[in-house]
């Protein structure tokens, strides 16, 4: 707690009180510095409401040797209820064998199959490669007029890609994963 002082005594503080002031000033500067670092490393979250919708499953069917990579895109809707359009997404899946990466697993959860996730803040194929559990900040273009993008159109895209190299060395069977996409306003 800062020592109470009047404006009158501020002009001529006793030496002891000047030391105390210097002490608190250093603390205040220190706290301010920490705050600045936090702001630089991650954009602050906004108090706006947000919604992600227009989600569709990725069903790749059956892959046979020689079929090549499997790639599919799904247009999605990001809505913000204010004038701002910036947001971040954090994408994870429910894999357990290698929980820290995007993996599909077979029914007994004994085999896994790697896949790649990309996010695009426009409604176009492709996007930026996403790391499991790491926020992709600085996204923009959220729809601000319709919570399901029925007005203004969809705003973004998720792409899933499974390489033929990974498919070709995978044990035969059915694989699945559930992806969660957390959207937060910035």
């Amino acid at each position, binding site marked *: 707690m800062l020592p109470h002082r009047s404006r009158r005594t501020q002009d001529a503080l006793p030496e002891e009180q000047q030391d105390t002031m210097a002490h608190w000033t250093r603390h205040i500067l220190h706290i301010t510095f920490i705050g600045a670092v936090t702001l630089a490393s991650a954009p602050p979250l906004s108090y706006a409401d947000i919604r992600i919708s227009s989600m569709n499953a990725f069903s790749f069917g059956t892959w046979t040797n020689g079929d090549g990579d499997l790639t599919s895109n799904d247009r999605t809707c990001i809505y913000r209820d204010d004038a701002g359009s910036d947001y971040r997404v954090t994408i994870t899946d429910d894999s357990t064998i290698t929980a820290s990466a995007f993996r599909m697993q077979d029914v007994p959860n004994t085999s896994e199959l790697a896949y790649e996730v990309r996010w695009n803040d426009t409604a176009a194929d492709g996007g930026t490669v996403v790391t499991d559990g790491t926020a992709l900040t600085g996204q923009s273009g959220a729809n601000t007029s319709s919570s399901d993008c029925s007005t203004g159109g969809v705003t973004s895209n998720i792409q899933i890609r499974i390489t033929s190299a990974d498919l070709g060395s995978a044990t*035969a069977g*059915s694989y699945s994963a559930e992806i969660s*996409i957390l959207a937060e306003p910035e």
Partner: protein
Amino acid sequence: MKTFIKAASIFALVGVVALSPYNAEAATADGSVGTSSTGTVDVTVTVAENFRITGLAAFAFGTRNIGDGDADSNDDVCIFHNGDGSYKVNITDDSTGGTGAGFNVENAGDSAVISYNVFFNDVTGTVGEAAITDGTNSAAQSGANTASQTCGGGNSANIHVVIPGANLDAAAAGAYDSELTIVVDAD
């Protein structure tokens, strides 16, 4: 007289593995409006049962003279199966008599043949190999590589071709060849 046998690389595929229900519930869902919003998406794919044979090389016996004995050569190959490592092979050649007529190299005019023998082994080398009958499924084999379509640069099986010296000695002079086809599939 030149004898030449080409081994054809074959991908064999056999049925798709019986599909089991996916382990993820149908959970694709939109998020709701809030200070944050989470949507969920299911991703599913089925990898069919696949086999592959690689590492094939031609058997080129060159010129043989009477008294040279058997023309004998073998080739270590890679068998891949993305399952339990079991499989069977069915080997045929393109000789005029067709499947089941035996393995024969033929001259350019297909007017003369020399019969030969084919053996298969489900480990590298020839120890423990079994004779193959043209067009007949082998017994169940094991030990296919289950992790790498090319066995990580190694091999897991062997094909062995022998043209008996007696057959060569009795053959008319000329160049003979044949193309072997090896089909690998589920046992």
